[in-house]
């Protein structure tokens, strides 16, 4: 990129997100705000049992209830949809049972859909759902991964007797020898409970099957309309070009609205059966047992270090509980695979072993959620290295300085097989130390300890693979596009309309795309409108997944902008009889680069191009609409990185943890809009803090959810959150012209690591350690009690 911006509102400008004006004045339009003529509403009857045989199902009374149009069960719904078998084609040994849309004879998680009531209003559908009578014969449930892997565990699916979805091992160097010969080995077992994304707007869609022409339109609160078009087409047997999915305003997604849900597809089937639009907006209470869950891991991990501080080996052994089925398209073995691939990534060492086993349990499906397995790798790595530094008597910051992969070793492939090229661990660390005033905080911590006040400092280094290329999903057989596109059209007014394949659920990507176009064409963002989220219009793409918007959609926009600029200049050249290489576009006007004088406005270009092409040379081709696409074909991903710090206080009487401060230095490559990037980082951080301190889907041993309301499932609110200070290092991605990497997940990844380390740092003088997320007051007090007991023995 040239340093000189062609537009003051272009790349790097800290401008507000344009879409917000609409949302802040109550003019947003979310799925539940939309009414279609003759639209019906649905309510699902769900299995109350985690594992049970459906003995009988009587819907006759419900069908007679007021306002009810239909009540469907597996009998009507399932034959219309090919069941989902969510296994990756390129991973031998990956197994899943076929998932039907509705329970046939056996429910395998609490919340699985059993019947769908369709009525004139949601209230009437809910009333009628209460009249559905199901008789169940409860079966023994597999409650967690440790139960699932026991030799006498019941099999959830007869064809998968050992409940193992996938067992993956990765090894490099000679970890056995390295652990045997290490000066110090530190070994830990960490537990991460289940949580859920808890978007404030629940999932929702309006399915509208038109019997007139057998076409399907779905207004869907989903991150990838393209993915859903493929699914509706293939699984419901509708020609692809007759399926249109559009995404309206979406009230938060975080990966959760990327997954494939049986209840959403059953809603589409209901519309096909009735020939009327059908709306399904998930009730908050049912969101707890139907939105995808995340995490749920038991991880054994260890590190080998020499007395000099050199890391010689790391090892992880993970058991993940992924629910009752594989997640269609997105494969819920990803968290474990990320853990295996990314553990230790910022550090220089050669010997490594990782094993991850994904296990079926009688619980809701695990799916994509911000960070996927990256935060697990960050926690493991940063807790182990912090403990190693401590054991060696080296300050944790100094240990990192010595142990990070040196810049001179880049590009490299890590022990876990990750490609690192443009990362900046050392720069981020030094900037962070200054930003937080590390030495002063350490002094304050030491001083307060003398007074029985236990504060902790946690530093966490992370990598964030973003904007994945086709090598990730391509070979799995999933209909997931890593390619993104951008279409630009010069209007007769001289303004530009953009259609992007990127979707925006609050990130601000559409504003970022406008800024890129502003720069690459040479006009102000005010002259550019950007729309995304319509799977039938504009270029094909992936939508929002794995932090790709700015990086891949932005690159496509940059390339489209440059093409359009060329075409505009060619037309300007034909009109003004000036060589195109003497022309450029600045602030919406074509200028002569030698004289810097305006030659012709974009509005005049548009007017002549569209309305008076007869005044142009007869062979001149007017091309004022262009499309460019981009895919990171030669890379696994663009690797972002960063370092974060947490400062916490633990009340040893109550077990309560107070967040005192959070600092982040993030490197997401070229920054399109610093305001939006800062807020992505902050928002991610709060979800990371929530994960470590509060969030847990609490299940009984036999897989019954115990806290399925927002009163019981704790999310971070303002009063528990600290001020968050964000700074950046900018190391552009080398493989693109734009140089941007993704930034959606780093906030969460780093915060989970830094809070884990900080809380444990606070407890060090007491000999206590918490290893079970979330760190509830009860778990903190248990840790303190264990430490006292050990000290007494």
């Amino acid at each position: 990129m040239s340093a000189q911006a062609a537009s003051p509102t272009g790349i790097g400008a800290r401008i507000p997100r344009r879409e917000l004006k609409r949302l802040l004045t109550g003019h947003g339009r979310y799925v539940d705000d939309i009414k279609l003529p003759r639209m019906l509403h649905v309510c699902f009857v769900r299995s109350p049992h985690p594992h049970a045989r459906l003995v009988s199902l009587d819907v006759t009374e419900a069908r007679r209830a007021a306002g009810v149009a239909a009540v469907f069960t597996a009998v009507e719904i399932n034959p219309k949809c090919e069941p989902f078998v969510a296994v990756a084609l390129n991973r031998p040994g990956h197994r899943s049972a076929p998932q039907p849309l509705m329970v046939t004879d056996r429910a395998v998680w609490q919340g699985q859909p059993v019947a769908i009531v369709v009525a004139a209003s949601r209230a009437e559908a809910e009333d009628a759902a209460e009249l559905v009578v199901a008789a169940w014969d409860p079966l023994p449930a597999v409650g967690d991964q440790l139960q699932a892997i026991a030799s006498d565990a019941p099999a959830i699916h007869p064809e998968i007797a050992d409940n193992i979805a996938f067992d993956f091992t990765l090894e490099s160097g000679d970890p056995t020898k390295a652990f045997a010969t290490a000066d110090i080995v530190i070994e830990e077992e960490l537990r991460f409970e289940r949580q859920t994304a808890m978007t404030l707007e629940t999932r929702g869609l309006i399915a509208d099957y038109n019997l007139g022409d057998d076409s399907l339109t779905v207004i869907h609160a989903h991150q990838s309309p393209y993915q859903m078009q493929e699914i509706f087409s293939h699984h419901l047997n509708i020609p692809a070009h007759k399926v249109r999915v559009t995404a309206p305003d979406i009230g938060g997604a975080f990966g959760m609205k990327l997954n494939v849900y049986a209840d959403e597809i059953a809603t589409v089937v209901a519309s096909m059966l009735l020939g009327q639009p059908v709306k399904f907006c998930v009730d908050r209470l049912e969101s707890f047992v139907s939105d995808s869950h995340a995490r749920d891991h038991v991880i054994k991990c260890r590190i080998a270090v020499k007395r000099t501080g050199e890391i010689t080996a790391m090892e992880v052994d993970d058991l993940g509980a992924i629910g009752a089925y594989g997640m269609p398209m997105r494969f819920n073995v990803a968290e474990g695979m990320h853990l295996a691939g990314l553990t230790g990534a910022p550090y220089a060492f050669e010997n490594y072993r990782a094993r991850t086993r994904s296990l079926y349990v009688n619980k809701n499906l695990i799916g994509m959620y911000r960070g996927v397995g990256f935060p697990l790798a960050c926690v493991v790595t940063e807790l182990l290295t912090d403990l190693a530094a401590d054991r060696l008597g080296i300050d944790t910051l100094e240990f990192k300085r010595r142990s990070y992969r040196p810049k001179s070793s880049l590009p490299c492939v890590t022990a876990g097989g990750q490609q690192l090229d443009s990362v900046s661990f050392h720069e981020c660390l030094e900037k962070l130390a200054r930003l937080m005033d590390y030495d002063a905080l350490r002094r304050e911590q030491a001083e307060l300890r003398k007074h029985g006040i236990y504060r902790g400092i946690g530093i966490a280094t992370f990598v964030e693979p973003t904007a994945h290329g086709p090598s990730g999903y391509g070979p799995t057989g999933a209909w997931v596009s890593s390619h993104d596109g951008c279409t630009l059209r010069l209007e007769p007014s001289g303004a530009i309309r953009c259609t992007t394949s990127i979707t925006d659920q609050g990130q601000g990507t559409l504003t970022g795309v406008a800024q890129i176009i502003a720069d690459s064409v040479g006009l102000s963002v005010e002259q550019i409108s950007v729309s995304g989220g319509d799977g039938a219009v504009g270029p094909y793409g992936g939508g929002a997944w794995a932090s790709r918007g700015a990086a891949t959609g932005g690159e496509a926009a940059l390339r489209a902008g440059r093409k359009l600029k060329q075409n505009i200049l060619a037309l300007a050249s034909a009109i003004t009889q000036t060589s195109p290489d003497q022309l450029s576009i600045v602030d919406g006007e074509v200028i002569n680069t030698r004289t810097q004088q305006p030659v012709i406005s974009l509005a005049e270009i548009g007017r002549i191009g569209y309305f008076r092409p007869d005044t142009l040379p007869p062979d001149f081709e007017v091309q004022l609409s262009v499309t460019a696409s981009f895919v990171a074909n030669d890379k696994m991903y663009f690797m972002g990185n960063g370092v974060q710090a947490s400062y916490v206080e633990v009340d040893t009487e109550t077990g309560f943890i107070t967040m005192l401060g959070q600092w982040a230095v993030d490197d997401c490559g070229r920054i399109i809009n610093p305001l939006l990037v800062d807020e992505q980082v902050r928002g991610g951080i709060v979800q990371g803090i929530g994960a470590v301190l509060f969030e847990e889907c609490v299940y009984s041993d036999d897989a019954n959810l115990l806290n399925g309301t927002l009163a019981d499932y704790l999310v971070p609110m303002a009063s528990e959150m600290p001020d968050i200070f964000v700074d950046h290092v900018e190391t552009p991605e080398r493989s693109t012209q734009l140089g941007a990497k993704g930034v959606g997940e780093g906030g969460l990844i780093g915060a989970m690591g830094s809070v884990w380390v900080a809380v444990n740092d606070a407890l060090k003088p007491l000999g206590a350690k918490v290893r079970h997320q979330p760190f509830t007051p009860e778990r903190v007090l248990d840790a303190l009690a264990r430490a006292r007991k050990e000290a007494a023995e």
Partner: protein
Amino acid sequence: MTESNNALLGEEEVVIETILNGRPLKHRAKARQHLADFLRHEIELTGTHLGCEHGICGACTVLIDGRTARGCLTLAAQASGRRVDTIEGLTVSGKLAELQEEFFARNAAQCGFCSSGMLLTAYELVSSEATLSRAEIREYISGNMCRCTGYHAIVDAVEAIMARRRRS
């Protein structure tokens, strides 16, 4: 499931008379309908959002006689004889426009789903003319869940208005 006929409970209609966003309104509603559903479904003011329908998330916050209230825990009938203000109505008033401007400038909203409730809570706070610390502002808005922003920018926005008040 049971012999009782729940479907009829609360189906009877009541007449609601209110001042909605400064204008008198007379409208029928089912007795069981809560205020947020009434606003969204009957009046088609969809700026008030529903995030949980059990009083926790704060997305449905409206003002009743100038005080914040949960639209999901208030029956529409309870608003009869009172003044109700929603995000749509307050947009035209000076104070909220000022707040919205501060939210806009700082990106103190992302998906926008919490914003109607968050803005009305913040409106109540800045209308009180009090000058609060950041911790106190955080406490005040802690009945409104925001899953996107991390709250920092929202606190900044409220603080900026309080600081401006102090100076003027």
